[in-house]
């Protein structure tokens, strides 16, 4: 059963595929430049000691995103 959720809801170690990107402006373009487009497979690597931000593996690179920014990326688990 496939389930759609926001990226920030992933648990450490969980993988998911991007289904849509609702962020806008600079952050939208930056995420796209990093290779985060519809269909990209993302791994939630680790939360920071204070719980936010969280590090994600996107196309081989580890990128930390704040909860607000990750919540605008929708993924399919």
């Amino acid at each position, binding site marked *: 059963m496939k389930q759609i959720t926001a990226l920030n809801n992933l648990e450490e170690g969980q993988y998911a595929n991007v289904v849509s990107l609702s*962020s806008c*402006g*600079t*952050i939208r*373009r*930056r*995420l*796209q*430049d*990093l*290779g985060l*487009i*519809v269909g*990209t497979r993302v791994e939630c*690597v*680790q*939360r*920071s*000691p*204070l*719980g*936010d*931000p969280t*590090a994600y*593996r*996107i*196309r*081989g*690179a*580890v*990128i*930390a*995103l*704040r909860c*607000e*920014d990750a919540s605008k990326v929708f993924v399919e688990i």
Partner: protein
Amino acid sequence: MRSLNDPFGKCAADTGLTVIRRQSDDIVIALAGNPNVGKSTVFNELTGLNQHTGNWPGKTVSNAQGRCEHNGRGHILVDIPGCYSLMAHSAEEEVARNYLCFGEPDVVIVVCDATCLERNLNLVLQAMEISERIVVCINLMDEAKRKGISINVKLLSQRLGVPIVTSTARSGKGLSSLLDTADELLVSEPHNNVSELVRYLSPVEDAISVLIPALESLPIRRLQPRWLALRLLDRDSTLLSSLCSYLGFDILSAPQVKEAFQRASDILKNSGISDNLSDICVAGLVQAAERCCLNVVHKSPNSDLRDKKFDKFLTSRITGIPVMLALLAAILWITIIGANYPSDLLSDLLFGLQEKIRSLLLAIGLFPWLVSLLTDGVYRVLAWVISVMLPPMAIFFPLFTLLEDFGYLPRVAFNLDKYFKACSACGKQALTMCMGFGCNAVGVVGCRIIDSPRERLIAILTNNFVPCNGRFPTLIAILSMFFLGSSVGLLRSILSAVLLTSIIVLGIVLTLAVSRLLSKTILKGLPSSFTLELPPYRCPQFGKVLIRSMLDRTLFVLGRAAVVAAPAGMLIWLMANTYIGGATLLEHFSGFLDPFGRFLGMDGVILLAFILGFPANEIVVPIMLMCYLSTSSLTSMSDLSALKVLLLENGWTWITAGSTILFSLLHWPCSTTCLTIYRETKSAKWTLLAFILPLCVGIIVCALFANISRLFY
């Protein structure tokens, strides 16, 4: 062909960089690439220059250039700021894009990270759209090997239609063949496969093909019509103005383009493409990069295991922050014990020489007052700077560089970001603070990595709250004299490191508090979005880093001592020996400052030393000692342990020491930092605020500390 009358006229104005060819046949090579792929290392290895390198994205913030000879020809290398894209979403991307488009480099080398090739290819493809003569340099091959990643270079080169060179820039491997390849490319027909590789949705392709013939009929110099058509349709406003000044005419108002542009726009509109064109472009590039990497990159399933293990330890919920503090304390501890021996050695040597120099100078017949000026003034301050200040600086800095090389600094930002978010600031501010430990001026320049102007300004204004390298020795010296009691040996140095760490933590807490204050008052705003890349850990090159940065630091401090400390010594001597109305000028000044100094828990001499130490923080303590000595019965200070006696004789208590430590942490930035702040903000108002802000905090904190302590003492 490049026009000889105007080789870089207008375009140079756009990029803020004029390339100076020493010979007319010099080859200009642009070095582009994602942040933190080792462009600066490639640049340094090839040019022999010493651009700052380190394992975090965003070190190179403006173009740098250097020249080298290869195969008997001059090569000028231009190191462009690292960027993820050439669509000019940020300042450094615009600098990079403008240089590639309008700087007319002969060859563009795109440096890629072998451990993350697919993402890097996105930029390669964009560069290929702009310029036909591209060499791909896949760097960090040693890291890829260690991670079990293999790359079929031949297949990739075939697919892209451009030459590829693999390298390990840190050890210089592959770099000479990089220049060979660039030279070969220069004599071959310009070509690459990008237009076949990156195909956009068919309405976009249709629209491009309508516009291309119109563009080709115009003198668009070296620009690629296909790329230009895409950017025009995407209505890239930052490009249009630069384009206009580069070409000397407004391309969209040329009649043939105007008509074709209208038709092309209609094609897009009829297919329902308007604002989402840039999404389509990015998707086209990312998917093309994905296709290029198919069967080219082979990863072992455990390739990221090592990084994950480190991260589990260095950034996890339980260990992340304690380990960070422990690392800081450990570095400080090594600095403290490491500095002891050279410090004693240097002071014995230098102060032992003082009398010999004096008698020598007297023997050659110089005036006694001049001899006193040179030995008691200039030489003594120099000797103090070198013996007390230099050793901790020359030890701390390389240790910190090791952490930087290892890739730890972005993790500090990752660990602390939530605090910065609570203050409506950017987590990358933590990175700029780390740079501030080395030198606040460097920290201020580093603030360019913060995209949001508001958050960047906050980071600039508060950078001075972390003590720089020049203030550590002061803190260490006062701490060990007044706050370690009778503890000895190992315990003493550990205690001293712990105290110093708490002072730094106080600085960090104040940074956060002031950042919060700023974002609630004059720099109001919500925290903005940002992405923070956590690069793979790299094994630092211990020998190279330690020796190089220790030498660098030593030369830097010695240079500054000559420029700043020597004149300061002379000034103090003159002030101490000029009598006006029965008292020396020095006594007048310090007497004037004394009441305020006492209110802050210090005295007039200490305040005067801070004021005269404006050019460089490392001369504050030497100036202070000079002032005390000039009025003290002690005339010679050959032993460092006698310092405390001198201070006690001048009325120092632990309150004086505490206040001096606090004021050293919290006062105006040094002159170099102030100048840098002015250059970065281009505003006298913000520079003034950066000066006043820490001073006000310092006055409040010192006054509170001193007056409350006096109640109990």
